């Protein structure tokens, strides 16, 4: 294939992946890696390298909108980034030790989990446990207020060690698979630490860039980041996700979201199958 054909096809696929990733809230990485590996038959290490780069771009690009709304909590984010960056370095080391079959299988499992979590219904209520004071959260000032229905509503982080532990796992997955692993980060904050859902998603997005940067240097020096692949992927995913965010602000996309979740499930099954049969 010629450079022109390869990069334009890849660009088109990346715009779609970024668009889908923004609408489902899963990020472009979870879509572009399977597309590169399954459709373009690119080695999975090139795929995760290009994906990681696009993840940094979309995370940093989207942060502007969220931070203006005063939703993301920089202190909670920074504290948990200690866990995610350490995990990301472990994950990046593991990519050299683990066979690409296993990377594909783990990737498929994460896709299935992410699809399920994107469909889970949100109660929007802070769990009852949130009223209890948490000594560690107090010491670290892991609290804040967010614009709720009745004006500014206060919140405090619960079960900080559990959240920190899950974040380490999220970082490891991010470094191993070249994705933002936003679904796991939201799980840690929303479910484990009892933070409001909107604070969890926006803080998660805020953390993704720093987490990815921790493994990006290792990816670059190993040669996982190939310019001919990364160029159309980064520009395409960034453009697609900006479009997706615009549409998300204007339209109700519940049906579209369920439809896309099915696409993600299909990709997840295909990744696991390809990993087991050794085609990846």
């Amino acid at each position, binding site marked *: 294939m010629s450079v022109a054909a390869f990069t334009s096809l890849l660009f088109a696929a990346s715009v779609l992946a970024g668009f889908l990733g923004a609408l489902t809230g899963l990020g472009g990485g979870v879509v572009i890696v399977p597309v590169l590996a399954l459709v373009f038959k690119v080695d999975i290490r090139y795929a995760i390298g290009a994906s990681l780069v696009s993840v940094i771009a979309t995370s940093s690009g989207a942060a*502007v909108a969220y931070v203006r709304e005063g939703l993301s909590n920089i202190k909670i984010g920074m504290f948990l980034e200690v866990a995610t960056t350490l995990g990301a370095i472990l994950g990046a080391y593991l990519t050299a030790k683990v066979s690409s079959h296993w990377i594909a299988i783990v990737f498929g499992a994460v896709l299935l989990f992410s699809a399920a979590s994107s469909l889970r219904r949100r109660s929007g209520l802070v769990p009852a446990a949130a009223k209890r004071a948490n000594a560690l959260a107090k010491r670290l000032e892991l609290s804040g207020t967010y614009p709720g229905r009745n004006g500014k509503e206060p919140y405090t982080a619960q079960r900080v060690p559990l959240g920190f532990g899950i974040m380490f796992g999220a970082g490891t997955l991010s470094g191993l698979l070249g994705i933002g692993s936003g679904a796991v980060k939201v799980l840690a904050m929303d479910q484990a630490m009892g933070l409001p859902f909107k604070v969890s998603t926006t803080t998660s997005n805020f953390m993704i860039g720093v987490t990815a940067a921790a493994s990006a240097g290792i990816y670059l020096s190993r040669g996982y980041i190939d310019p001919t692949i990364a160029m159309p992927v980064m520009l395409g995913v960034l453009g697609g996700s900006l479009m997706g965010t615009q549409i998300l602000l204007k339209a109700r996309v519940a049906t579209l979201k369920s439809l896309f979740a099915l696409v993600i499930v299909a990709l997840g099954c295909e990744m696991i199958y390809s990993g087991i049969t050794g085609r990846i």
Partner: protein
Amino acid sequence: MARPTDQELDVAIAGMLRLGVSLAAFVVLVGGTLLLRHPWSPIPDYTHFQAGGPGLRTLRGIVHGAVRMEATSIIQLGLVVLIATPVARVVYCVVGFARQRDRLFVAVSCMVLAVLIYGLTKGR
């Protein structure tokens, strides 16, 4: 020097992130345009991973290539700017927390920065 509020810090950080991403996207686009000057040259075999030369894997090699206006090196340079953007954000937080006299979070941010620097320099 006035102590910045959390909200002021947030807005400054968001602006910096956008600047970094825009700059990175621009440099990558310039490299991509140069790459497509030879649109019909074939792509290498990507079905099996093989690490390229140091020209695209080390900062020194990338800068050398970019100075010679090599398309792939310029793309990599844009990606290095992109990777540096979140790192700059953490540096900015260290400074911001220091101005807020928040010693605890200066320490937390420094820890994150140390892990990032380890990953960027010692990683292989």
